[in-house]
């Protein structure tokens, strides 16, 4: 692409200079002929650039599509942007601010949202950029290949300290990453989600066996949910987020719109913890949906059982 651009730049500059010198005015009463238009020439210099641009279009689009679909085995990291910092959470529970530690050679999938205005997660060295938009999740993914320290920027203007909303991505060898994870033991995100599930008394209605007034959440994530009034939706992160913050938006077929909104009661970070908890219910079918920590031993202090 650069080559094509340089070629045309040189072509145009060259032609302009060459003609400008060769056909410079030698006397004031020259009157060159002209007025003839070569249709063939017009067609040629329309069609050839069009063909070239279509190649660029296809090339760029195929890269973009590949970049848009994260591999299934990608490691999930949640990002919440706010004026003016990046808050990141690992599934294992580690929380970071303006720093992100990742293992190399492993696809990393970011699920991102913002607490306030639009931000944009930009790591120039990974050729990764994705706007982080309040009120919805956006995702992106990348794989780091070399250990090192890389710039993390906010690329969408977000107010006074926009240029201070920067940080570092530390790409580490897998063993170093494991060591880093072990260095600060903490409950997993799903554990925290379980605790939140309890605190918010979600289990009062969402029973594991589906006997409650609200649908069971076991096996929900990734399933297709039939909606009241027809239609269906895939239960992904965005659907679960919406159902927590704006429950009437999509009512599950066969249930009443009883659930109150949790807007203002739970933070964006809390929502992603709840999502991780709901995801963890898939991995352990049969687990009682009582707020019991999904990973045994990690949820000390939480109150099991219904409230």
């Amino acid at each position, binding site marked *: 692409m650069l080559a094509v651009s340089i070629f045309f730049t040189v072509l145009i500059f060259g032609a302009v200079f060459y003609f400008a010198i060769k056909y410079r005015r030698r006397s004031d009463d020259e009157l060159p002929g002209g007025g003839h238009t070569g249709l063939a020439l017009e067609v040629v210099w329309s069609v050839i650039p069009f063909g070239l641009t279509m190649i*660029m279009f296809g090339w760029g689009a195929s890269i973009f599509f590949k970049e848009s679909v994260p591999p299934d085995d990608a490691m999930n990291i949640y990002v919440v942007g706010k004026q003016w910092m990046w808050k990141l959470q690992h599934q294992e529970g580690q929380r970071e601010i303006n720093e992100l530690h990742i293992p190399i050679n492993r696809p990393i999938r970011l699920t991102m949202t913002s607490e306030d205005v639009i931000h944009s997660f930009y790591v120039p060295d990974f050729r990764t*950029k994705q706007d982080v938009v309040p*009120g919805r999740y956006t995702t992106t993914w990348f794989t780091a290949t070399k250990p090192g320290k890389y710039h993390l920027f906010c690329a969408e203007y977000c107010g006074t300290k926009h240029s201070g909303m920067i940080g570092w991505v530390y790409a580490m060898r897998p063993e170093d990453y494991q060591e880093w994870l072990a260095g600060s033991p903490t409950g997993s995100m799903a554990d925290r989600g379980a605790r939140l599930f309890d605190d918010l008394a979600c289990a009062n209605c969402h029973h594991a066996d589906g006997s409650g007034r609200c649908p069971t959440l076991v096996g929900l994530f990734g399933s297709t949910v039939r909606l009241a009034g027809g239609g269906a939706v895939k239960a992904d992160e965005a659907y679960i987020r919406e159902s927590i913050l704006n429950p009437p938006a999509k009512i599950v077929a066969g249930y009443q719109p009883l659930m109150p909104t949790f807007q203002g009661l739970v933070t964006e970070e809390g929502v992603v913890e709840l999502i991780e908890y709901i995801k963890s219910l898939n991995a352990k079918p049969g687990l009682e949906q009582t707020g019991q920590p999904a990973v045994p031993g990690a949820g000390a202090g939480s109150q099991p059982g219904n409230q």
Partner: protein
Amino acid sequence: MATAAVLERETYLNASYGLKSWLLTKDHKRIAILYFITISIFFAIGGTFAGLIRLELLTPQADLVSSETYNKLFTMHGVIMVFFFLIPSIPATLGNFFLPIMIGARDLAFPRINLLSWYLLILGGVLAIYAMVAGGVDTGWTFYTPYSTSYANTYVIATALGIFVAGFSSILTGLNFVVTVHRMRAPGMTWFRMPLFVWAHYATSLIQILGTPVLAVTLVLILCERTLHIGIFDPALGGDPILFQHMFWFYSHPAVYIMVLPGMGVISEIVSTYSRKPVYGYAFVAFSSLAIAVVGFLVWGHHLYVSGQSLYAGLVFSFLSYFVAIPSAVKVFNWTATLYKGSISYDTPMLYAFGFIGLFTVGGLTGLFVASLGLDVHVTDTYFVIAHFHYVMVGGTIMAYLGGVHYWWPKMTGRMYPEHFARLSAVVVFIGFNLTFFPQFILGYQGMPRRYHVYPPEYQVLHVLSTAGATVLAVGYIMPLIYLIWSLKYGPVAGKNPWGATGLEWSIPSPPPTHNFDRIPVVMHEAYDYSAVPREVEVG
């Protein structure tokens, strides 16, 4: 006026005197002069902001201004330059002055509305300047929501109102041009005998009429959300922030063509005159203006590739963005072909036109980079984009504007400018421009995000180069200001056709009389028919 002493005949300049005769004038030429003065002032203000930005960026740390001030500087630089300089620039000045003359009309179709347009721009400008003096605005010229509606604590409302009002100035000017071209062509001035400058303005006017109302609606919605808290764009109120970006760019991308199409029209005139040849492929150049105007409305989504817009939307917008590059490329090829076997002279306007062709080519070709879905992910919102659009808008529009001002200066004022200084200014502007903006392509490719007040130190070298270039560029812009004003009094008297150019504007005296033509001309020749130009080239 100085010219009155030299020329005894009545011209539009000496027909009447006094401030009132100017502020209440219905003469398109006088209104054009009012616009000249107005937009020159706005350019000076916007340029001062740019200078302060470049000065601050000399070092990676914050030293000259605070972050708040820096953010206000780049916002106000954008607002002033886009809405109060570039949008009105060529159409409101050169277009206003020459479009009626070029088609053999005595004025625009609606002279009073023309004057109203100028007052609307002034009113809009006063509101915008009030916002700046009162404390400034820091949303970026793009007003992205929900920052602009729910978070910014600056003068968003006054600024948005100013742009809203100035928008009507743009709509009315477009309307005036369209009606004039349809209804007021002289006998024999068929559509395909019109100078390409007129075609370019016709295409521009269509965009102004169809696009600007959408901007007005968008700004009103901003005001509704900000003052009445009606949820439109802020998700906390139930709105959609991406909706704003769609609405904003639906106008603001075509607005790029409002800025550059008239420039292309100017270049067509200049290249033809100084090659003494008809523009190669007249019909292709004319229709490429219309093609750009139409397809330009369908590419706005290329500003949203990484916004969270759907993949398939991105695909369509990328395709159309490549498509719209073709008519621009066709123009460049045709201008270059016009030079072939021409009789080329290196007068100042031609030097500016060469500069335009070079810089617009670079601006256009880097557009192919940002139109690519995959590549844009990396370079969007970086200095690469800054460099790209400055090459198009400053390298393109302002080079064309300065070229056009020099080209028609003798016609407008009856005086010649000092040729040597003028050629020097064209060269200084070209060098200064490239030194300012070329390093920014590299900065952007290296990952330097835009709108950063402080930045990591590894980017400093290129920033220093860019600031040095901006200094040279400033000198290049100040030079014409000085010698053009000087020439008003001391410049040699210009004949009616100092360049041996075609076009009806060169068939009437310089400066033109108030009613342009004593008798409405009958057009017998195609555009750019140099065999029909009387050969007496010197003082007439």
